């Protein structure tokens, strides 16, 4: 009987090669998405059973190189070198083989057991690229398995390939990456010195790889070597060699090494791949031509955004109403009645008003907007539109010191600030991430839009609501620019791959939406519930009125709002649309236009828009940037809202 065995495999490869599609095909719903310990880099892992093996799959982040350009790259290479998965599946985009092989060569240098998943062969065939799988496999000395991730073709063979490698049935003769003579001779010297001086490091990383990285002046590896007593000797030899080869080639040593790897990759594809038909303008390319056009691209971008948010609002509104009936009219009274039989009424108030209405708030308000939003986002993402949007917006984003990619989280912010905040991870450096996060939380999310449209839009006029949005954009521009000046460090320019348009696969869309929604629930719900319990307890204990009195000087004196608005603004921390709901309850029997002047409505909406990122967003910020920065942003936003609200009250005609 064959014993049940556990295998660990990792998926590695460039971005946009269909890596997560392969991951979804392998694991289905059996996946957990989290963070790498101590890093804000997404870690997706899943499990499957195959031929008596329990296979744990880790989806490494999509990267182009194993250098130290980004956190994703460091995480990936440390995982491969230190954790040593049994097999690494290198997912390769057949339609961009040369660039993908560049990464494969780096994996080979890490001396990891690899098999190649030649993905999107259908797409390559469409582009007229024919790849000789057998030849590629013999040249590289590792198994090469063609797949089409979107349909699942070849995934079974891929797993069989993995098993073959594990059981030693596949003959592996991985290609040795050979550089030019002048580099090889120096590498040999460095390598033998590495083996001699830092033997402990060689147990983790292959000595040749260390030598290569030293020659490339990889700061991370240099630091690792220098931690050993005799490491400095190795580093100075490597530095001297780097200077020598720079003299010969007249380029930077990392550039020389990159050129060399590309030379090797190029010679491999010359053998194994051929273009059989001249590429014709496909439908996708025509679409690309229009949607990223320097003039027509912009109206299309606006149209797509408007359509997307209109759809979310209409759909979300419809779902919210339905769910509200279920929760508020049926579920909560029933639970309250049941609880009243065993518990005193104050506790029932806290439980029902706090915990259950917290959950109900999350389910009835957040989810109906979040789920459609995530579905539409996944469509934009998988089809390849987002990079086009980033391309179009690069110029404008540069005004606030960010590049085009930052447009993506900003756009997400109009739906909900939580995914937007997490979406800032696409930025390359810590500085850019924080800067993007900082401006993102100022974007009025769907809940704020409900308040602005429901109050200002309805009673003052659409032009005033629009003015608020425009004002917010100007504010973002100004604050972004200030933060860009204030934050230390250098901004980064845009370097982004533009993947071709593709038809998204429904299975991937649903899985993506599902895992993101789950993530949202994990971040947002605990704090929404805790927050409702605290506020409900305060009101049950009769502390709400004193609190409102305490805030009165600011609310009425400085902002010029009616005294009732203190409490709604406090509850708005939980969910911003609560401000409007509570306000209309508190001023009753008067209607809103009777209770508030136009100026007061505008000031109220303005404060709601800026004053604090809601509690779920704060939670997301804490996770992404640490509590110190999250607190700083929160305090700053509150002060800013009060300042601007006060100024608006004094400037606007009453």
């Amino acid at each position, binding site marked *: 009987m064959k014993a049940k065995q556990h295998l660990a495999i990792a998926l590695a490869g460039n971005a946009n090669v269909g890596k997560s599609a392969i991951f979804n095909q392998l694991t289905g719903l059996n996946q957990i998405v989290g963070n790498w310990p101590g890093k804000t880099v997404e870690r997706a892992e899943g499990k499957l059973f195959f031929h008596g093996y329990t296979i744990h799959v880790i989806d490494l982040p999509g990267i*182009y190189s194993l250098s130290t350009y980004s956190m994703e790259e460091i995480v990936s290479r440390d995982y491969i070198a230190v954790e040593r998965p049994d097999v690494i599946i290198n997912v390769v985009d057949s339609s*961009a083989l040369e660039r993908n092989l560049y990464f494969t060569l780096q994996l080979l240098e890490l001396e990891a057991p690899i098999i190649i998943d030649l993905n999107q062969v259908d797409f390559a065939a469409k582009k007229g690229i024919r790849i000789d799988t057998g030849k590629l496999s013999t040249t590289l000395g590792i198994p090469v398995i063609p797949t089409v991730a979107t349909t699942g073709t070849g995934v079974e063979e891929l797993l069989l390939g993995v098993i073959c490698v594990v059981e030693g049935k596949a003959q592996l003769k991985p290609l040795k990456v050979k550089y030019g003579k002048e580099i090889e001779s120096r590498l040999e010297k460095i390598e033998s010195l590495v083996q001699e001086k830092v033997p402990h490091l060689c147990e983790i990383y292959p000595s040749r790889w260390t030598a290569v990285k030293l020659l490339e002046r990889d700061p991370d590896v240099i630091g690792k070597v220098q931690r050993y007593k005799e490491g400095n000797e190795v580093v100075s030899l490597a530095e001297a060699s780097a200077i020598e080869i720079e003299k010969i080639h*007249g380029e930077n040593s990392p*550039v020389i090494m990159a050129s060399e790897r*590309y030379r090797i990759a190029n010679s491999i594809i010359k053998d194994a791949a051929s273009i059989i038909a001249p590429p014709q303008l496909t439908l996708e390319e025509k679409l690309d031509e229009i949607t*990223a056009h320097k003039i027509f691209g912009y109206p299309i971008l606006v149209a797509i955004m408007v359509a997307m948010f209109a759809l979310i609002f209409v759909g979300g509104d419809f779902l919210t109403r339905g769910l509200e009936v279920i929760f508020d009219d049926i579920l909560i009274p029933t639970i309250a009645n049941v609880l009243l039989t065993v518990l005193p009424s104050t506790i029932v108030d806290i439980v029902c008003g706090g915990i259950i209405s917290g959950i109900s708030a999350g389910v009835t308000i957040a989810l109906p907007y979040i789920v459609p939003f995530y579905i539409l986002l996944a469509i934009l993402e998988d089809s390849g539109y987002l990079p086009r949007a980033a391309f179009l917006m690069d*110029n404008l984003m540069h005004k606030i010191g960010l590049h085009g990619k930052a447009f993506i989280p900003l756009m997400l912010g109009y739906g909900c600030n939580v995914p937007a905040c997490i979406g800032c991870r696409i930025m390359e450096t810590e500085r850019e991430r924080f800067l993007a996060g900082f401006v993102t939380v100022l974007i009025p999310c769907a809940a704020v839009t409900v308040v602005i449209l429901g109050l200002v839009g309805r009673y003052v006029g659409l032009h005033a609501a629009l003015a608020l949005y425009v004002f917010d954009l100007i504010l973002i521009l100004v604050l972004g620019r200030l933060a860009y000046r204030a934050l230390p460090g250098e901004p980064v320019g845009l*370097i982004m791959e533009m993947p071709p348009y593709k038809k998204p696969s429904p299975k991937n869309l649903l899985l993506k939406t599902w895992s993101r929604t789950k993530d949202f629930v994990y971040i947002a719900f605990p704090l929404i519930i805790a927050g409702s319990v605290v506020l409900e307890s305060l009101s049950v204990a009769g502390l709400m009125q004193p609190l409102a009195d305490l805030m009165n000087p600011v609310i009425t004196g400085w902002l010029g709002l009616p005294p009732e608005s203190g409490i709604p603004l406090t509850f708005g921390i939980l969910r911003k649309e609560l401000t409007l709901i509570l306000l209309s309850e508190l001023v009753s029997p008067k209607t809103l236009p009777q209770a508030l002047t136009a100026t007061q409505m505008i000031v109220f909406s303005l404060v709601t828009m800026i004053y604090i990122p809601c509690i779920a967003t704060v939670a997301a910020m804490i996770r992404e940037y640490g509590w110190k920065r999250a607190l700083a942003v929160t305090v700053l936003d509150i002060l800013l809202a009060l300042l601007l609200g006060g100024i608006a009250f004094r400037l606007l005609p009453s």
Partner: protein
Amino acid sequence: MSRKEVYELVSCLLEIISMREVEGKPSQITDIAEELKRPVERLKMAVEIALKEGLIKRVKGTLKLTEKGRAEVQRHRESYLHRKYAHYPTFLGGIARFFEGKVNNWREHWRHRHGFNNNSLNQFYRDLQDFKGRIEDTLPLTDLREGERGIVTLMMTAHRFQGHHHLPGFVRRLAEMGLTPNTEVKVLRRSLFHGPIEVEVRGVSLALGYGLASKVLVKPVARETNES
């Protein structure tokens, strides 16, 4: 020949000799004339002047640059880059250049007026020294039109050029994305006002910010339609 023409011819001559030296080829007047597509007689005049000025010397029948000649090539290259690309090609850029006046000490000038630091300046001079080809033949990637191709000749590692700041790591990143020296790139799309450009390199399309792209110097490849 006017003085300007002579000056231009001499600087071309020096550039060609320097290029051939980097490539390890000997330089004879006939080779140079062929490369420059100019008559040998005119070139002889330029050689005479250059010899008299001590910019080149004759070693075993071939022409070699002297120290002075090498310095002259360097100066020629940096002043060309400065004139053409270190300022925005706009009216305001022209005014800024006018007020800078004549530059005597280039090192100081780059440092004070263009935000170079010592490291980036050294790299910049090294790049210039190893530059293969005539500097007049190069353009920043941003100057190519849609559909045009170019071969990457020089990446300005310099810290600041045309007012944009960038992490020095960008050259490495570009190389990793396939934009290595001597690679052919094709401009697929440009955008309005100094927006990003989209290029095709090694069968992949990449979007590059304007600031980055303006630091990648390419030698334009003649379009097939023009040649025939």
